[in-house]
């Protein structure tokens, strides 16, 4: 799986590359408009992460370039927060998703995974982990073939964790994912614990292994013990 990260801030580029490389992604990077344009012309990528505020050219122009050349890469637009216009324009121009800075890396991981799933399997795709099978198209979960009924939040939590396996996911990142950062105004994460507890119980009851581990003081980690 090959990604191109177009980001002009070295600190952020570095983190994104490092985090996504922990998954089995091959990450290439570009820090300017020209560099990105050159790489897009030369190579094929599964997903392009595009910061639309770039030195030496508008990221949206790059997106236009991609779309006019009928490239099939998935595109995730990244931009400064509160730029409602950027989001709307970007999505109208054919980007697959939009992420506002500052974001949590697990959120980025989940978004990239979702784009690649959609692109690769023609929209009909499965997210699998051992005996757990999630159909992200039909939004159904099965453990060893037996359907498990989850609430909306539990389902979102499961997909998020499965997209960021073997990673420590902070409560902040989980809260932001479940409720959006608008509602992350009360620093009380007890509600996450409730959802996690219910999800784990439902999966264990259906016969799945105990993959959802809590990391003391921080959050959770999806891993095989």
């Amino acid at each position, binding site marked *: 799986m090959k990604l191109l990260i177009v980001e002009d*801030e070295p*600190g*952020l580029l570095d*983190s*994104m590359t*490092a*985090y996504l490389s*922990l998954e089995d992604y091959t990450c290439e990077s570009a820090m300017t408009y020209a560099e990105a344009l050159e790489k897009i012309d030369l190579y094929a990528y599964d997903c392009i992460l595009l910061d639309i*505020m770039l030195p030496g050219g508008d990221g949206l122009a790059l997106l236009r370039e991609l779309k006019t050349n009928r490239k099939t890469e998935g595109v995730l637009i990244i931009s*400064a*927060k*509160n730029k*409602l216009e950027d989001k709307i324009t970007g999505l109208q121009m054919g980007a697959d998703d939009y992420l506002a*800075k*500052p*974001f*949590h*890396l*697990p959120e980025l991981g989940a978004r990239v995974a979702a784009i690649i799933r959609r692109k690769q399997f023609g929209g009909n795709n499965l997210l699998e982990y051992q005996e757990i099978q999630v159909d992200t198209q039909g939004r159904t979960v099965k453990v060893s073939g037996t359907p498990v009924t989850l609430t909306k*939040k539990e389902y979102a939590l499961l997909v998020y964790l499965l997209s960021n396996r073997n*990673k*420590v996911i*902070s*409560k*902040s*990142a989980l809260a*932001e994912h479940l*409720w959006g*950062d*608008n*509602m*992350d*105004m*009360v*620093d*009380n994460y*007890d*509600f996450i614990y*409730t959802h996690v507890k219910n999800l784990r119980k439902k999966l264990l009851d259906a016969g799945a292994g105990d993959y959802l581990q809590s*990391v*003391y*003081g*921080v*959050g959770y980690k999806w891993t095989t013990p």
Partner: protein
Amino acid sequence: MDDPMKLAATYQRFYFALLAVLLVLGCLAYYLTIRYVLIHQVDNDLRIEQQEIQDFVRLHDSLPAPSRYRDQRLEWAPRPGYRERRHFVDDDDDRSIQFSIQVKGEDYAVTISKSLEETEDLLWIILWVTAGSIGVLLVGLFLGNRLLLRRIWQPFYQTLDYLHRFSLSGPRNGGTGTSNIDEFALLGRSVEDMTAKMQRDYMALQQFTDHAAHEMQTPLAVIKGKLDLMMQEPGSGPRQLEQMQQLLQSVNRLSRLNQSLLLLTRIENRQFIEKEPVALEPLLAEKQDWIREHRLEVTMDMEPGMANIHPFLAESLVNNLVGNAVRHNIPGGKVLVTLRPGLLSIRNTGRAEPLDPARLFQRFQKQHPSEGAGLGLAIVKEIADISGMEVRYGYEAGTHTFTVTF
């Protein structure tokens, strides 16, 4: 321009009142002068008549017979011991001269009268002609002045109109009045320069806000990313991980503060003035779970209601009001949401003392320690103001209520 002649009218009123007073005084002085001159003329005639009588007596040693000729009358009567060289008498319509004369050793009193009727007539004719001329002059002046003022002040009103239609963020339409009058031309130019500068400064300010936000978000994004990444390091112990989580919380708080300030600036810059009917019911309904997750009891009593507001602001308004009701609640407390056409009220249990309504909606006013930055209600107020809504606070027995009417 509902009343284009306001300034000119004020000026005209004063100007013509003064002119009228001066003209009346002038007329009076004119009348008295003319009258004096005319009477003096009559007196001269009477003196000549006296001379003629005296010449006649000297020649004939007798008085001419009393006579009445046209407007002149001669009368005499013997009056022993009467001595008078010359004495003028003013009657109703006559001017008379009286004097004594000796005829054959006897004293006579002679009176020559002249009717003033003709003089008065003349005086009135002169007066009427003068008054007429003054009237014509006044009307002419009034009309001329009006026309002139209107023409002269035209650029001024054009400039006023330009200023009236001027909007900081909008395009500059029309122009100030051009004029060959130095002051007005200068005014027009100054106004145009000033508004252009204001718009430039405003643009610069907006760019500054945008850049400041971007510049602040990038380091925040870097910190956030590095912390997420550090958590993946295999060597981190529980203590380090806990501290990283605390750092993340602080970064998120800083990032929310940045966004709140940005939002306030953008509302003030009128970036969200386009309104459309927004259904508040679904926005509120989707907060139910979130409120329950904070272990609060929530009741929503809603009738479908549309508010005329920018959709983004509607969301922000609901988020801040609901967030406020949760943040300032007590463990096991309640949140009651009521939605009626034109009214949204959010009621929550909380501290058993009312908040100070004067400081409630001000920025960074935290009346009790809480996790928020103290911007939520300031945002609510700004949103209400720009959307033509009204927000009120009420307190009753441990229940705080925020009511928005729209």
